């Protein structure tokens, strides 16, 4: 990305980046035949399993993404924990 480009495109949303991110998600979802409903259910199930070991987790806070890798794909789950519990230790 050169100087001219940043000059002329600084404030415009880059649609190529949007396309790339959307495709990254849709390609792995296609490959694993994963529907949006299944992803929602997966979050609820993950929250239920973790609740056995950790303080209650809100499934809506969980972010699940499938990422394409060189040799294999990865399931990445970002699960925020409430910090309040740690200060009690």
């Amino acid at each position: 990305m050169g100087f001219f480009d940043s000059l002329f495109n600084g404030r415009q949303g880059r649609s190529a980046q949007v396309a790339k991110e959307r495709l990254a998600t849709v390609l792995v979802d296609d490959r694993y035949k994963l529907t949006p409903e299944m992803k929602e259910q997966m979050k609820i199930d993950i929250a239920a399993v973790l609740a056995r070991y950790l303080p209650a987790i809100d499934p809506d806070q969980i972010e699940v993404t499938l990422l394409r890798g060189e040799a294999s794909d990865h399931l990445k789950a970002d699960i925020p924990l409430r910090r309040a519990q740690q200060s009690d230790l």
Partner: protein
Amino acid sequence: MARIITITSGKGGVGKTTTTANLGTALAMQGAKVAVIDADIGLRNLDVVMGLENRIVYDLVDVVEGRARLRQALIKDKRLPELCLMPAAQTRDKDAVSPAQMIDLTNQLRQEFDYVLIDSPAGIEGGFRNAIAGADEVVIVTTPEVSAVRDADRIVGLVEAAEKGPPSLIVNRIKPRLVNRGEMLSVDDVLELLAIQLIGIVPDDETIVTSTNRGEAVVYDQSSLAGRAFLNIARRITGENVPFMAITDQQSMFERLFGMFGRRRS
């Protein structure tokens, strides 16, 4: 013994037929014996793209059903005696041929040619399965658009499932100016998404339209960027190590210069 290479894409209209015609012509220009097969039964087009539509007597289905011998259905190119076209049937549908028959056909061609290029129909159904049945290698053509890339990925999965080995990729109709503005997926973006081997980058080029209008391959046009790109791909297919053209920066520099002087490239 020929190498049998299928050109496919999933999505229609991304340039499979143009690619097949130009790679076939380019390989024959290098002295190879080449047969190009139109496997798009019912929607034949490779003949008009190559300017051979007036010479068709027999087609692929005639050969498969025994009405014509292989030699009778192979049409010689106008310029290159070592280049032949096997046209698709126009009045039949895709079920007229089975994968086993395609394997049989390609094995017969294998004896007489160095390269057999198969132009696949769009889609993932029977016609596509016929087109890859006899293939040793698969080349996937895509354009830098979400729909084409998504469909290309489906094809990657199907080609791997058919145990054809990893397919290679041609990214067609790149518009350098849009890529530079961040408004079109770059070749690197597409490669990252599809994670397969790149064999060619073809810039969007108006000479494709004019050469197709005339039924001539664009590889004859020395001034055509797309023509040079196809020649390079043909050399890579033969095993030569040809660096990829740095089309993105060069061309956009030109376009910017033109832009500065208030001219527009129409």
